[in-house]
């Protein structure tokens, strides 16, 4: 045995390597079948970052299809409701440079809007109900419809099909519950005198008088 190997080192090495590759190939093949991942995990991850308005402004019928398209190489800047935050998050996930929002698909708006139906004008055609991607419109044929505001994603899709144009997209009412502190002005801006707000009492610049004092 040893003699044979010593006499034919080249073929012995060849046999050994082929043998190893066969074994590892079998192991990998088995693992590929046994531990197959169902679905595309990256699609799930992208989908979870998208805002789920299901508005179709990206050109795909819903957020998941767009997530699939991104996974297949589409650009990541087609989502106006998500805006730059979403683009940054996806860019982070895919480890690519974050592009700016493609204005072709719409503009990012700071104000979140939801649909309201002017109920006296509604004729009960159910067209908006069919258009709503999240079943947030309530009503029946020939009966008044109304929007479940808490479920409305503000996707806009119900406005166009309405034959009597009785759906308005109105900004969400801001209450005390939605209020949050503003980010302080950065030190650079503060030095430039752009600070107009404060936090705790010691940080607050309130009146013009103080500003005058400061200047003086």
């Amino acid at each position, binding site marked *: 045995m040893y003699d044979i190997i010593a006499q034919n080192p080249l073929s012995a090495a060849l046999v050994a390597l082929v043998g190893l590759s066969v074994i590892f190939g079998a192991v990998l093949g088995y693992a590929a079948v046994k531990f197959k991942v169902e679905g595309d995990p990256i699609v799930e991850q992208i989908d979870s970052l998208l805002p789920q308005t299901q508005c179709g402004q990206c050109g795909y019928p819903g957020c998941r299809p767009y997530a699939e398209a991104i996974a297949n190489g589409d650009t990541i800047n087609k989502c106006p409701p998500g805006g730059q935050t979403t683009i940054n998050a996806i860019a982070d996930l895919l480890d690519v440079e974050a592009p700016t929002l493609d204005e072709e698909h719409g503009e990012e708006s700071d104000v979140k809007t939801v649909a309201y139906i002017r109920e006296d004008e509604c004729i009960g055609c159910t067209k908006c109900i069919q258009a709503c991607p999240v*079943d947030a419109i309530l009503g029946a044929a020939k009966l008044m419809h109304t929007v479940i505001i808490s479920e409305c994603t503000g996707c806009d899709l119900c406005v166009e099909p309405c034959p009597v144009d009785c759906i308005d997209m109105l900004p969400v009412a801001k209450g005390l519950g939605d209020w949050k502190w503003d980010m302080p002005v950065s030190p650079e801006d503060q030095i430039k005198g752009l600070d107009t707000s404060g936090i705790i009492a010691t940080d607050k610049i309130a009146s013009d008088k103080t500003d005058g004092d400061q200047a003086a």
Partner: protein
Amino acid sequence: MRKVWDLIGGVHPPENKHQSVQSSIGTLPMPKELVIPLSQHIGAPPKLLVAEGEHVLKGQVLAEPKGFVSVGIHAPTSGVISAISDHPIPHPSGMAARCITLIPDGEDRWVETKGIETKGIENYRERSPEELLNIIRQSGIVGMGGAGFPSAVKLGARQPISTLIINGTECEPYITADDMLMRERPQEIIEGIKILSYILGEPEEILIGIEDNKPEAYEALEPYLKDTNIELVEFQTRYPSGGEKQLIQILTGKEVPNGGLPADVGIVCQNIGTTHAIKRAIQQGEPLISRVTTVTGKACQTNRNYQVLIGTPISHLLEHNGFDANQCPRLVMGGPMMGFTLEDLNIPVVKTTNCILAPTAEELPTPPPAQPCIRCGMCAEACPASLLPQQLFWYAQSQNYERLEAHSLFDCIECGACSYVCPSNIPLVQYYRASKGEMRKLAQEKINSDRARERFEFQKARKEKEEAAKAAKREARKKAAEQARAKAASNTEGSKEGNASDKTASSPADDIIKAAMARAAAQKASPEEQREKLKRGISRAESHVESVQKRLNGLEPEATEKQREQALAAVEDAQLRLKDAQQKLADLKLSTDSDAPDSSQPSTEKAVMAKIQASPKEALEKKIATLKERIAVTEEKIAEADDEPLTAALKNGLEKQQTKLKDAEQQLAETPDQSAAQTATPETEDAASAAIAKAQAKAAAQASMSDEDKLKATVESLQNRLKKAQEKLTSAEEEGSEHIDAFRSGVEKLQAKLTAAEAQLAQETH
């Protein structure tokens, strides 16, 4: 002396407490109007119970708690409700919220029931803790230290409580409300602690935490602690030792877990003011309608504590203290560390207002502009929550919320110690507050988007299901239409293409046969059932005969000839029917009698199997044999029978058997040349076989017919149907039936079909 742990971090800003403790807790004249915000606590807003223009008495419930984490509000004095509208409330945002405006009538008359109990409870130990908790909740008592969390919820914790801590720390500069309360009303506070202890099931330890800068309060409380298990613990003055978690750590060394509550480590913490309010509510039946508030700052001439009615405008407080607006650049509610600036002097005092601070510009100078962070690490040393303020600052600036979360931003108590010590004057706590708000918003958005996704996916699944159901229906209809077409095609093509017709013609014929068999099988009931049915029929017929005869007999002699005739006809008819039914029964009996030998289940099966297995010819031969036997039996019976109707019935049966025999013999003769013998079932006497034969004959006839003939046949049948339909229609018209429309439309349809068929026929012949 009890072991006291040190506060982690912390700062010691100038206390400035001496100004406001010079005189006792004062009272103010009644303001012109009181503005009571509906929601002064954390949790669900209460339900409004009063309307504009209504006259209310002091202590009357204005709004009742709605939901678990909620408390009510009460009228601080008697008067008229002038408005229920949006009014600026004490909140850092300066926003407006729903408020009740009350114009006092000056009488200050108490409501009869004093809110909850007529005169309070003398001996609270007679009541259950649940009852007392409900009184606390109904009395509108919330944490008066600043957060405004409903006290009943806090005291109703499910966890067993081993330590009750009363927070008399009041660590923030300037504020002395709790200090003065402890000095002036120690007895009431101790009484309140006893009530709390009773509600909590007498915890092992009851501690009052107090800073060493309040020796007067300490001395005032001490005499009342004799014969109680309440322990007064003094510790070093340091901000923010009054924070709930910080105080727990100082007094017990225990740390409240991240995201947990003090109750998780068996501790409940209550503020001095809250304890006092609970005592008043339980023993005096007085809801939370006033509180002690410090009015201080150099912009006010007098610095003092007042017992202020909830809803008193701050301007009223300031007016009576010689407030100089020119000296005061900003008015602060709360302390200088954690308070917020007020934009409007008409903002009311609420349940959580412990201090109104009116400082001069020198007293509370505007911080100089922030400089870049020099990484000195002083903020980390000052942080009482052991966080890394510097790291948090970087992450907050870069909006790296993931890292902020990892660095436990939500453990920050926003005490402002880091901002206070920062040599670069960076408003650190403002960054944390803003980031917290942003993170809460993102978390809410995440919840919303997850729900939207769920709803979207559910809708998609639902639509797919509906689509599938529709497709299945369509498929079924298509199949039916195809079958009908194939049938029609085989009818028309049958004779045209001689050779090809065999296959196409046979399949519809088979279908027809199968259908007929199924029908026959469905109709054919077991002999027993048939017998039952017939017996029932007979009894019905008999009763019918009787009733008809009665009617005949009962007819008046002067009845017309016609009536009599009718009645007679009816009797005859009924008798005929009876006879028929009896005959059928006899028939059935006969057949079952002759079948009796092999009526048991297994043998019947065997016989059937044999029948199926046997060739048609054999089966026929066998049947002929059995028929012959049966005929013989019947003949014997006829000979034996002496009863007239039975003989007739038997004779009838015999005749039938004979015809059957003849049929069978004939069939036997035909069998050898029958190619489709397999399709015919062996049981020729069956209704199914009759239908099969008919269908076969029809199929054969159709196959042999030319197209023209077929069309002619169709036209003929259509004409027949049309005639029938028209007859029905006329009769319906005569009777005025409600289905007249249906009949008419049926006639119209038939006419249309007929014309179409005729047109086709005309085409064929040309």
